[in-house]
């Protein structure tokens, strides 16, 4: 299988004054194209930091990170912005929609930063929103939507630029079980449609939706299924 992500001896150390705090000690892992991987671990285990590095929001202190065989650890910030825009879609626990923009404008946001023309932006955003059954909510502000609807808008925004990887950080953490299950079903569908999905969670039931579970403890990864 083709590797889309390959991480080797990754280390992330935060410096707080004179004290160095390692968030990730030594992580090596691979994710194949089309996989649905869960990363599990207790809070403070370094899973969010790992997620940020994979999502090109953060850079490692040492080690290498290959995304589609390109070494992200050595890239400039402008290039990282390009990758975040084109290759990666982010879904957060707290949705992170822009409160003063309506649903349509929120979903158009990544397209705007790709330089897509306004009319084409609207067309593409509407198409994705229709797939997620949100075509009746285009002009609503996020505050007017339920949690499940908000997370669907966030997913629409994450996939509107058709990224190869979707990263989800506790995507069901703020949702009731029913809405959470809907969201997880959407991730399964996206995975079937060809998106590579990496999901951070601390909920074993949620993690079971994925093909593979990685455990991270104290900044070290422990590959393998635990069932």
């Amino acid at each position: 299988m083709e590797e889309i992500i390959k991480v080797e001896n990754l280390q992330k150390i935060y410096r707080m004054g004179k004290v160095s705090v390692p968030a990730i000690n030594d992580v090596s892992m691979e994710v194949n194209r089309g996989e649905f991987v869960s990363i599990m671990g207790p809070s403070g285990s370094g899973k969010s930091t790992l997620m940020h590095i994979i999502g090109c929001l953060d850079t490692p202190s040492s080690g290498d990170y290959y995304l589609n065989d390109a070494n992200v650890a050595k890239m400039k910030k402008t290039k990282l912005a390009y990758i975040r825009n084109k290759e990666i879609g982010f879904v957060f626990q707290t949705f992170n929609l822009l409160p003063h923009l309506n649903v349509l404008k929120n979903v158009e946001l990544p397209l705007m930063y790709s330089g897509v023309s306004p009319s084409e932006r609207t067309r593409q955003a509407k198409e994705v929103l229709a797939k997620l059954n949100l075509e009746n909510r285009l002009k609503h502000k996020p505050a007017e939507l339920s949690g499940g609807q908000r997370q669907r808008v966030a997913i629409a925004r994450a996939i509107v630029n058709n990224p190869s990887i979707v990263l989800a950080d506790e995507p069901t953490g703020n949702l009731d079980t029913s809405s959470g299950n809907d969201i997880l079903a959407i991730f399964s569908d996206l995975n079937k449609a060809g998106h590579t999905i990496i999901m951070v969670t601390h909920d074993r039931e949620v993690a079971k939706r994925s093909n593979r579970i990685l455990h991270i403890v104290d900044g070290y990864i422990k590959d393998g299924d635990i069932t």
Partner: protein
Amino acid sequence: MAISLRESLQVGFSDFWTRKVRSFITIIGIVLGTMSIVVVLALVNGINQQTIAWMMERGGLANITIDRNWQYNNERNLPDSFTLKEVRQIRSSAPEILYFNPQISTRFRFSYQDKEFYGGVMGIYPDFSRVEEWDVGAGRFISEHDLSQSNDIIVIGTTVRDELFGNHDPIGKYITANNRRLQVVGVMQHRFLASGQDVFRDNALEYLNRRSFIPLSTMVNKMTGQDNIRSITLKAASVEEAPALREKLEATILNLRYGEPVFRVISARERAEEMQESAATFRLIFFLISLISLFVGGIVIMNIMLATIQERTREIGVRLTVGARRRDVFLQFLVQSVLVTTIGGIIGIAVGLSMLSIVQGFIGVEMVANLSIIIVALFVSVGVGLFFGISPAIKASKLDPVEALRYE
């Protein structure tokens, strides 16, 4: 694949409208600043034009005036007036002088029947009316014959006529001044400065209407008995020749007083230039005062932008996550502050322009607005936005995506 300027403008506009109250408060300082720039520049412009109009009304820019130099401390006690003999010397030293008018000014109490009028009288040459470009409105002006014969005649201003004669025709009547009977031969044209209004009076040239004129020889020989001509006004053949003529006359007059600058010789053109120069200084000072208010407005904007960025840290994090580059974030906030100041500037210009007529009615000075004032005000308001928007925009663009997303 950058976000375009137009895109940033759209984002900026929607931000502006989303926070209407805040935006309004933000722009007040800029509105007031640009408003005062427009009003002040229009005021100085008006004063400037009025000055030039006044110079033109007073006989044009080819005129030269010789009078006492009050900056000279006359310790040697040199004569500070000319004798008739010296006046003739000065005249013959410069044959190119077009019109030449030595004059003595004094004040007399006039009476006609039971009416009295106290006012200025000038002993003059017949050339006076051509130097000043001011003719009689009725009767005739003083002639060469009047001058050579020291005739007991007088030409009066319109206000003098109104005060002494009311509605009656003054021509041919005799009025008494200094125990001498003078025959009125003419009434000067009424003078009114149409192109502007004086700060204190309705008619900037009213003082001229209160004057009377007699031949210089009559003044010296019969009225005052003193051969002391304190000033000379004259006209060069053209505006271009005036500066050279002025220098020549200055040399002649210095010579008459042993090289001491007892008198000053000033051409109207140079005086107009001087006045314009001082108006430019005036304008600069007021412009700088207006800039202070804009500076304050700019600091307010910077403050609010910093607060806005703080408040929107998470939004910036989200934008960075979906692919915004640092440049996009920088541009978004810079465009926003420039947008705010530009909108403020446009409102300020509009308010300032609509206030001009009110201010004009209030202080009585004509306000002259033109395109360059509007451009300056607009330019300054955009500049304030750029200047005070850069540092908040840089701060926004330097946010770390992960920390921005975590911000509560």
